[in-house]
């Protein structure tokens, strides 16, 4: 990238980071209670909630990992985003309304909602532990994304310095402004991501020579399966993607948390249009870069990529003019940071609110403790990102799947079926979390030679198995246990 273009990128990225810090400072004076810090005072409108939910749902996974996976696996990677047609409706219909109802009883977190439905500390504690583990994995993923962008686009040679800049900004506004800052930065970030996605999609089609030329180029790559619906992936893998991302959305606390913030619950009816519609617009970046970069390689205009996760940075550096490159860099940072601040917030809530309450020892000043929990969680995520290096999309699938398997059955079925007991919900959360982590560990570990593999069919996703097992355990334990005589739900 030329120096002049790099200056434009720095100006765009710097301006964006400064805007975030300004929002953080503005939010500082408006954050006076735990309610402000955790659920933004429950003052958000429909558009703010929809855009903030979209921004929290899309991270470096969409801007870096998605195109990267498509370069490697063809159109099969799109099975991760294909369910977007119904996931927004599913989320609002199955859990959104229920969670919003519970917020009237002083509930501010997902484990809190589960505690209101399943009395006793076990379910709340297990849910909090799941959220903490998943939040660390997701934050680690975002840190990987920040490092890739700052290093390969902005030319920061030292990865630690790149990481430190991004961390400082996220920590700055997350610690000071809590979810008030998180909400309004998410709105700014969501709008920025949507604008960048459309612009980059159009540019990607132009650079690739148009839709027909791109697909003609791709049909000649490899064995010609790139353009088939499942791409180069086995059927069981794409079905696993569809299941985990289609159903697992119900267990994503960073999205569910947003339902507590909407001022008027009757607006939930229209949230799928705003949330789902903005998601579809934003996903154009995945499709555009994911098609254009391998087409450019097939046309001989771009060297094959050493690391598929670099597809977006390379496209940005090689084919986007300075201002547009700056917009995309700001959008990627927005995607990363909007997700990071959500996870910092819900991780802090799990650590200082839900875990102590599950243990019967609530903290006296949760707001102060929450502010200090944020950097502590960040530090652990930093360690995770150093230890677990893989394609961004695959780390994202693990983190998404862990939430899905642990929380989706207890929330989606447990909030509606009166017969589900605390014991069944706890068994389901425990099963989902343990199966997901153990299978993922067995599939990836290289330290212990004597350990067996996960024993799955080739291409089967550990997260899908964990999700199926978690649902099955919920049903079996519910049917085996005697039906409760009275129920609060």
């Amino acid at each position, binding site marked *: 990238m030329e120096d002049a273009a790099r200056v434009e990128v720095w100006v765009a990225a710097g301006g964006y980071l400064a805007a975030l810090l300004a929002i953080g400072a503005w939010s500082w004076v408006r954050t006076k209670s735990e309610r402000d810090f955790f659920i933004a005072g429950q003052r958000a409108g429909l558009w703010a909630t929809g855009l903030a939910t979209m921004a929290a749902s899309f991270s470096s996974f969409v801007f870096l990992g998605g195109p990267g996976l498509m370069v490697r696996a063809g159109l099969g990677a799109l099975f991760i985003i294909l369910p977007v*047609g119904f996931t927004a409706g*599913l989320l609002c219909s199955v859990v959104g309304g229920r969670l919003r109802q519970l917020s009237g009883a002083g509930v501010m977190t997902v484990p809190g909602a589960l505690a209101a439905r399943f009395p006793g500390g076990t379910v709340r504690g297990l849910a909090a532990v799941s959220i903490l583990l998943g939040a660390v994995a997701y934050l680690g993923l975002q840190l990987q994304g920040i490092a890739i962008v700052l290093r390969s686009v902005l030319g920061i040679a030292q990865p630690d310095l790149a990481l430190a800049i991004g961390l400082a900004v996220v920590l700055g506004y997350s610690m000071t402004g809590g979810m008030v800052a998180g909400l309004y930065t998410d709105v700014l970030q969501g709008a920025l991501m949507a604008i960048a996605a459309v612009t980059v999609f159009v540019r990607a089609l132009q650079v690739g020579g148009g839709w027909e030329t791109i*697909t003609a180029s791709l049909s000649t790559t490899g064995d010609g399966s790139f*353009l088939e619906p499942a791409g180069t992936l086995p*059927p069981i893998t794409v079905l*696993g993607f569809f299941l985990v991302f289609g159903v697992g959305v119900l267990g994503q606390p960073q999205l569910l948390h947003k339902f507590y913030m909407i001022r008027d619950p009757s607006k939930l009816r229209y949230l799928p249009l705003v949330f789902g519609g903005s998601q579809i617009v934003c996903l154009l970046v995945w499709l555009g870069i994911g098609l254009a970069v391998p087409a450019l390689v097939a046309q001989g205009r771009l060297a094959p990529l050493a690391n598929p996760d670099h597809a977006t940075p390379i496209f940005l550096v090689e084919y986007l003019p300075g201002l547009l490159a700056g917009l995309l860099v700001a959008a990627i940072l927005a995607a990363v940071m909007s997700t990071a601040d959500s996870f910092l917030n819900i991780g802090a809530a799990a650590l200082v609110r839900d875990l102590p309450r599950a243990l019967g020892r609530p903290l006296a000043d949760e707001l102060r403790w929450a502010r200090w929990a944020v950097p502590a969680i960040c530090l652990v995520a930093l360690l995770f990102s150093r230890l677990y290096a893989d394609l961004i999309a695959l780390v994202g699938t693990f983190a998404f799947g862990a939430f899905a398997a642990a929380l989706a059955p207890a929330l*989606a079925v447990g909030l*509606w079926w009166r017969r589900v007991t605390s014991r069944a919900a706890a068994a389901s959360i425990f099963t989902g979390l343990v199966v997901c982590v153990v299978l993922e560990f067995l599939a990836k570990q290289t330290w212990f030679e004597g350990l067996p593999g996960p024993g799955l069919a080739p291409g*089967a996703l550990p997260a*899908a198995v964990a999700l199926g097992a978690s649902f099955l355990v919920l049903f079996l334990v519910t049917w085996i246990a005697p039906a409760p005589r009275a129920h609060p739900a």
Partner: protein
Amino acid sequence: MASSLARFVLLCAAVAVLVASFARGPVSTLLGVLAAALFPPALLLLAEREDARAPWWTGLLALSLVAGLSIAVFWRDSPVWAGLPSATWLTWLFAGMVPFAVIVFGWVLRRPGA
């Protein structure tokens, strides 16, 4: 009734996921298709039991997803139609676009109070 049906489908789908993840062959793939396609409509049916129209639109959603995912994994074609294989377009249509329309008409535009 709708809730019982939804719970039964969810149970079967959960078992199907496990079988499909450990076994191999076309029957295993078919079970994977059914599980992935039936989970979302069954969950919607469970939540929308007070809406008398829910069995219809969740049923339509299930049919569309079964069609889209079956085409994706069982139909491999080489002819390129409008730049992409026809199986790819049909997969995107039935597993992506029709569900969005069904959700909009089934849930967003449902009767007030349902």
